[in-house]
């Protein structure tokens, strides 16, 4: 049932604009062979959009175009768009673009009777035929309302003009001045251009201007209905869709080491995935930037490029400060593997920051991008704007398989509730979240780190103590015992305490063993003495027995002798 989309007949033919983002919103471009109205106030970028539409059509899509302008002349326009890198003169010379400046001065024109605007049609037709144009820009037709007094004729002619453009199959962009109130254009041009209407706008919010674009209407096609921020940068116009609507970026199983051995160990032993997004959050002074700098240094050490966007410190200051913890970034800056771009968030609107990041990433092609910190952007902007912006950034970097490291300052102190409210609601966008915390105990604050989440890899659930020293960053096990976690000098004291206790116990055991041994010796001596005594006694007993036996024997012999003697005497007597 869900396969219906695949069988859908091909939708309306589209003429790609080549403008970054606009083709995504409109599902492929402006309606081919039909007019599109672009409306906006002064300075909104209508002309820029129109020029880029033509230039990209001519240079990228093989569709030459006619630019008919009613307000500024060709020389001014050429000069104005040169700053965007568009060389109109060259394109005119190559017969890819025709510039026609239509000048109308009310004071020069006296109406003397019935007329029509066939002259305009002829001019336009001639220009189109001269280069075989497929695209037409009319910038801005509303100047005609000021120039020609008879609006009834003008309106009839405009209606005819749009029909004529359609009949000739021209993909046209017609610009119009934004009207008062809800009117899209001041003179109601929208009633003639029914196919596609785009409104440009710029709003100043807390002294920072944001340009926005909205496709109000696009007949016969689904389109993004939201307001999309856009900007006019050095590469032209770019519209930033809030997010790529599909989550279809490629994934890598490759790992990027953080350069902190024990941290890699906590992250399944290998570090984070390439192209994943890492959030390092913590309260002030917990070492967020240090971790980011270490990752950058490791990346450069591996011969890959890294881009560091700093919104708090200047590049020189980062280099100096990181050197104090044994991270020397300077050689990598010198050999071009590392670029640090430091600016204040208030320098420009959020979208400009984003586009600047886009431009630099495209030009530098890094494998790791650090934004330090994303939370600083919220100081200048509404939270509701930051999240979509970050989402777009995360999507953009993921698509390019760039590992992104975002640091975020948690404002809520050390309590757990405070930790959560300061993630700009972006933690769900992140693949790995390292949480840094300060633990205050026995008069000192110590840094701890733990992996709050890390998608797709086994990761440690342990809190580690995080040490910054001139030798670099190290993680040590915290002391766990007595139902509590000890860090810092409390941990050191506890460890010393344990060592002493152990040493004492060892001594005690040894002396006990010694005592036992000596007692055994003493007992053995006693046994020997007693045995000797016993033997002596035994000998004496034997002696006495022998003597007595001898005596008895002797006595017996004597008695016998006597008996024999007595018996002899008696016999003689008989």
């Amino acid at each position, binding site marked *: 049932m869900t396969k219906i989309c695949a069988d859908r007949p091909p939708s309306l033919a589209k003429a790609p604009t080549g403008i970054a983002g606009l083709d995504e919103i409109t599902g492929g471009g402006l309606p081919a062979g039909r007019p599109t109205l672009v409306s906006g106030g002064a300075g909104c970028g209508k002309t820029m959009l129109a020029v880029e539409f033509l230039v990209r059509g001519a240079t990228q899509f093989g569709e030459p175009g006619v630019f008919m302008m009613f307000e500024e002349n060709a020389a001014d326009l050429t000069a104005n768009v040169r700053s965007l890198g568009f060389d109109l003169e060259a394109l005119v010379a190559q017969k890819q673009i025709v510039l026609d400046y239509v000048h109308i001065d009310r004071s020069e*024109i006296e109406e003397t009777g*019935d*007329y029509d605007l066939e*002259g*305009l049609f002829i001019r336009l037709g001639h220009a189109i035929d001269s280069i075989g144009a497929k695209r037409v820009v009319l910038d801005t037709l509303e100047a005609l309302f000021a*120039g020609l007094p008879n609006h009834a004729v003008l309106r009839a002619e405009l209606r005819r003009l749009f029909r004529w453009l359609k009949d000739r199959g021209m993909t046209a962009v017609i610009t119009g001045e934004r009207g008062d109130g809800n009117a899209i254009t001041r003179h109601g041009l929208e009633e003639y251009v029914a196919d596609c209407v785009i409104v440009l706008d710029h709003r100043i919010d807390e002294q920072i201007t944001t340009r926005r674009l909205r496709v109000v209407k696009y007949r016969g096609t689904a389109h993004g209905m939201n307001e999309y921020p856009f900007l006019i940068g050095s590469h032209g116009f770019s519209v930033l869709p809030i997010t790529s609507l599909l989550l279809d970026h490629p994934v890598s199983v490759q790992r990027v080491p953080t350069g902190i051995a024990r941290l890699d160990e906590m992250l399944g032993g290998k570090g984070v995935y390439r192209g994943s997004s890492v959030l390092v959050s913590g309260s002030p002074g917990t070492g967020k930037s240090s971790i980011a700098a270490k990752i950058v240094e490791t990346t450069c050490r591996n011969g890959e490029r890294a881009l560091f966007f700093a919104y708090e410190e200047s590049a020189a200051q980062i280099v100096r400060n990181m050197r104090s913890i044994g991270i020397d970034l300077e050689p990598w800056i010198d050999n071009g593997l590392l670029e640090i771009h430091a600016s204040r968030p208030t320098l420009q609107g959020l979208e400009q920051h984003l586009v600047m990041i886009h431009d630099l990433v495209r030009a530098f092609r890094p494998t790791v991008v650090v934004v330090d910190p994303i939370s600083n952007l919220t100081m200048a902007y509404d939270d509701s704007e930051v999240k979509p912006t970050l989402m777009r950034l995360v999507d953009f970097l993921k698509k390019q398989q760039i590992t992104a490291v975002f640091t975020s300052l948690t404002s809520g102190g050390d309590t757990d509730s405070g930790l959560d409210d300061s993630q700009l609601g972006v933690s769900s966008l992140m693949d790995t979240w390292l949480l840094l915390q300060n633990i205050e105990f026995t008069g000192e604050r110590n840094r701890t780190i733990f992996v709050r989440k890390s998608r797709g890899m086994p990761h440690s659930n342990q809190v580690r103590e995080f040490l910054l020293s001139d030798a670099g960053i190290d993680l040590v096990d915290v002391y766990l015992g007595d139902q509590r976690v000890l860090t810092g000098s409390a941990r050191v004291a506890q460890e010393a305490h344990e060592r002493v206790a152990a040493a004492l116990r060892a001594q005690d055991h040894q002396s006990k063993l010694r005592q036992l041994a000596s007692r055994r010796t003493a007992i053995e001596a006693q046994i020997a003495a007693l045995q000797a005594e016993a033997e002596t006694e035994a000998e004496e007993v034997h002696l006495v027995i022998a003597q007595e036996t001898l005596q008895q024997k002797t006595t017996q012999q004597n008695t016998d002798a006597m008996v024999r003697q007595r018996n002899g005497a008696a016999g003689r007597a008989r």
Partner: protein
Amino acid sequence: MTGPPASAARRDSPPGPEFELRLYVAGQTAKSLTALANLQRICETHLAGQYRIQIIDLTQTPQLAAGDQILAVPTLVRRLPTPIKKIIGDLSNEARVLVGLDIQPVIV
């Protein structure tokens, strides 16, 4: 009585055409023909002998439209005397044509 001599005097005095007019039209439409007829009538009445009319059909020579900044047709351009003046429409409103071309009307 006074009309013809004045007219004759004006006709004689300048050696060449004082007014150089260019009428832009787009094909042989009713509007073009009306405009041309109106122009010839007005010129004959007020500028007899002092004008020259050039007719440019933009359907034949569209590249000429940009030169004089032609948008509406018919357009009448007064090339001479300077400054250049431009009027649009089929010239049926004679008073406006005279104002637009800065011509002193000849009172008949």
